[in-house]
């Protein structure tokens, strides 16, 4: 039983993910939409981590691939079938092709120049999707299903159109609610397995070496471009998969998904949790999505109720003190959290966890030095 063993890791991980609806219940985060978001953004972040965490190339344009995945999936629902399998496959592939194109150009540069190039490409995609490309994207309103869509595969299979809008399904099983979460969760587990394999492969080692010393890699006999490009495309495909899953659980795609702030969000998630670690990005996703969905909804009365067990005076005081940080002030809390984490824990939450566990191990007098955190 060691975490070095892939099977052990995967069993543990699957158990944790699949049981999320139980253990997230006490903190009110076990409703389907948030669970889906955890899984979807989890995929987005672990994919992003393959590029940023391993090679150190900081892309500020990954939201573009997310958006392309979403649009592709919705088009698949409109033109082909409401079954999610083609949507997910097409979304991932089309994003991969798009990533190949942008990566091929952007990877001619490194450092902040690379970041700005990816940012520029993503912003162009966003602006065009919002305006000129409206026939494809339906602009600000977002691409939606309609009664009149052809859905040729469904028609061929003899599926009778419903009176209302059809729902996405996996061979008849509806993809909203908890079943949608489990679909996303299974894909997250597969995605995690892929990243685990990559992290523990010679290919992954080479990517880490590129981050450590790109120049040396070249003189050691490696052409770094194809390595970077393949990592870029893989992470772009993860983003596309995440985007198509967003469409699977909620068949609508909007341009704002491609905006630079959305790219920034995945960067923040990854760094907050711990870039380059296997589960750090997932922790980052959990924290940020929890803030966005739960903290933002707390209002004074909810706070007051939470402090109910305290004496009235103290409860009132605490309500007054904490209320600027929740509800509409959740951005403020998030900003402060970033600052605190970056100042005190540059390795993200994962560094905090390893510090605590090391401290505990020392306190408990246990032997065994962990070989230096990276």
């Amino acid at each position, binding site marked *: 039983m060691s975490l070095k063993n892939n099977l052990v890791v995967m069993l543990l991980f699957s158990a944790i993910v699949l049981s999320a609806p139980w253990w997230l219940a006490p903190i009110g985060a076990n409703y389907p939409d948030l669970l889906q978001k955890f899984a979807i953004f989890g995929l987005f972040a672990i994919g992003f981590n393959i590029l940023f965490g391993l090679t150190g190339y*900081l892309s500020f344009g990954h939201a573009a691939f997310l958006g392309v995945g979403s649009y592709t999936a919705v088009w698949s629902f409109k033109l082909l079938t409401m079954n999610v399998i083609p949507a997910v496959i097409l979304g991932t592939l089309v994003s991969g092709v798009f990533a190949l194109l942008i990566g091929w*150009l952007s990877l*001619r*540069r*490194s*450092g*902040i*120049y690379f970041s*700005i*190039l990816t*940012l*520029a*490409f993503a*912003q*162009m995609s966003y*602006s*065009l999707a*919002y*305006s*000129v490309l409206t026939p494809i994207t339906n602009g600000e309103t977002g691409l939606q299903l309609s009664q009149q869509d052809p859905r040729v595969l469904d028609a061929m299979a003899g599926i009778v159109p419903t009176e209302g809008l059809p729902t996405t399904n996996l061979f008849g099983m509806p993809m909203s609610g908890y079943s949608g979460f489990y679909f996303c969760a299974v894909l997250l587990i597969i995605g995690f397995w892929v990243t685990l394999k990559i992290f523990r492969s010679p290919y992954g080692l080479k990517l880490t070496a590129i981050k450590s010393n*790109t*120049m040396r890699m070249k003189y050691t006999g490696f052409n770094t471009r194809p390595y970077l490009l393949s990592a870029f495309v893989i992470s772009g495909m993860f983003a596309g998969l995440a985007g198509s899953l967003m469409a699977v659980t909620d068949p609508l795609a909007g341009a704002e998904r491609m905006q*630079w702030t959305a790219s*920034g969000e995945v*960067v*923040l998630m990854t*760094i907050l949790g711990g*870039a380059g670690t296997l589960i750090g990005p997932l922790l980052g996703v959990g924290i940020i999505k929890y803030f966005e969905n739960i903290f933002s909804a707390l209002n004074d009365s909810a706070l007051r109720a939470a402090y109910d067990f305290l004496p009235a005076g103290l409860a009132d005081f605490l309500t007054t003190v904490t209320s*600027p940080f929740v509800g509409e*002030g959740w*951005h*403020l809390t*998030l*900003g*402060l*959290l*970033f*600052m605190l984490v*970056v*100042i005190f824990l*540059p390795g993200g939450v994962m560094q905090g966890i390893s510090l605590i566990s090391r401290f505990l191990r020392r306190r408990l007098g246990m032997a065994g030095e962990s070989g230096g955190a990276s």
Partner: protein
Amino acid sequence: MDAILIQILNGLDKGGAYALIALGLTLAFGTLGIVNFAHGALFMLGAFGAVSVQQLLTISKRVKDESITFFDAYKEIPYLEIWWGDTGRMIIDYAVPISILFVIPFMLLIGVLMERGLIKHFYKRTHADQILVTFGLAIVLQELVKAYFGANPIPTPAPAVVSGSAPVGAFFGLGEDLVYPWWRLIYLLASGLIIFAVFAFLKFTTFGMVVRAGMADRETVGLLGINVQRRFTIVFGLAAVVAGVAGALYAPILPPDYHMGMDFLVLSFVVVVVGGMGSLEGAVAAGFLLGILQSFASMNEVKSIIPGIDQIIIYLVAVVILLVRPRGLMGREGVMED
């Protein structure tokens, strides 16, 4: 012809704002090696400096408004007006120019505090860490502003004398139609002056020479036994002042809201990179260049040929420059590669 002239004016004006923000960003990056994502927030703080002065000057007495009967409504009459009549009204009218006097020391203080309190701990950290911590700071600053001033833009007009338009066309002999707002001309002039002042300061004072030497080679200057640290603190303060003044002067053009810094942030980073990381001249040149290009791309004649070009022109230019000439217009080779 006059359409082109006026678009050049527009471009220069826009470029002035870009250049000022990019200048401060480059100062901080070139001297301290800090990628400051909170720089847009400093611009925003400057604009709200103007708003605050205006609000201070218009602190009002609440007088019951008798015309509204079905609930208690109040009219607001500024004390300055009550005390000094027309003189008071004139002082209120000049809120924005007056605010500059307050914004300069205020922003210097903010800049120095920020450098001493936060930035200096991040010199040795990665750029990603710097980006994240300053981004966090930017969010905190703008949320604080929002909590106090609200999210709605706040009108901050220029003095009445210069609220109209200047007959530029008549001046150049190009017809009456060609007018340009006085305040924008003043902004253009002011941005030119600030840029000139910054360059003169760096070029002709010993202080500036040390800073420039530090930008070229930080370690060597440190070895000379000069207290580079303190000078760099002041440089950071200077960058904050430039951003703040740019923001305060911009307030009459764009009614300030808490988010205006973020709107400028990405753009100004693109400007800095196009100009060349760490090159002050490049930042200024790129600011004006992109401003003018953006103005021309917005012309109907251009848009009818390439639809949507006005939305993407800046990014398109950035992509082309970075692919063809990665060090930017005037940057040194190899800065911040890897």
